[in-house]
């Protein structure tokens, strides 16, 4: 919840912490089949940062900034659907 970037339509999306940002070249290259890591209970949650909306403000959210609290992370297919 640290910085509050300028509001605009071209805000960058979030991504995993510690992973390089995709470059133009990587996007056009054929997708490389890599082995997918499975999520497992008892193992660390992948850290990530993502743009966020909280109490009327655009902000950002990084999972590892919230260590020390219990966190429920919910994904949903789209706005205006149910949870």
């Amino acid at each position, binding site marked *: 919840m640290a910085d509050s970037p300028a509001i605009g339509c071209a805000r960058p999306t*979030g991504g995993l912490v510690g992973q390089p940002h995709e470059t133009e070249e990587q996007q056009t290259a054929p997708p490389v089949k890599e082995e997918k890591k499975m999520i497992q209970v008892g193992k660390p949650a992948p850290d990530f940062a993502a743009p*966020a909306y909280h*109490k009327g403000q655009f902000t950002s959210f990084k999972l590892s900034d919230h*260590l020390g609290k219990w*966190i429920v992370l919910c994904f949903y*297919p789209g706005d205006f659907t149910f949870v």
Partner: protein
Amino acid sequence: MWDDHELSKMVTGGIPFPMLSDGGGKVGEAYGVYDPDAGVENRGRFIIDPDGIIQGYEVLSPPVGRYVAETIRQIQAFQLVRATKGAEATPSGWKPGKLTLKPGPDLVGKVWEVWKVSMESE
């Protein structure tokens, strides 16, 4: 916009937690909930403890909604286990205030003496 137009009508003051955007599904992909064919996230729900460890998760396909009370019950159970440093465990159907189990050699083969199937639905 969703918060302004709909969610704030369900919850006074709007949604109290941060709502995140995962355009492109990178975060969802890392958590195994992104469906690249449909281009959407499935209904994933992860319980992450104060050390950043995933203690539980549930993933549903889009048409079926979750049961929030069950998520809260699971967090309460994990908090109890954590508070007792694993000395107590919560059997099937556990709710706050109900019987916990003390895992150990004495309990092996004896769960049936302390826990009954009827306790699941009490």
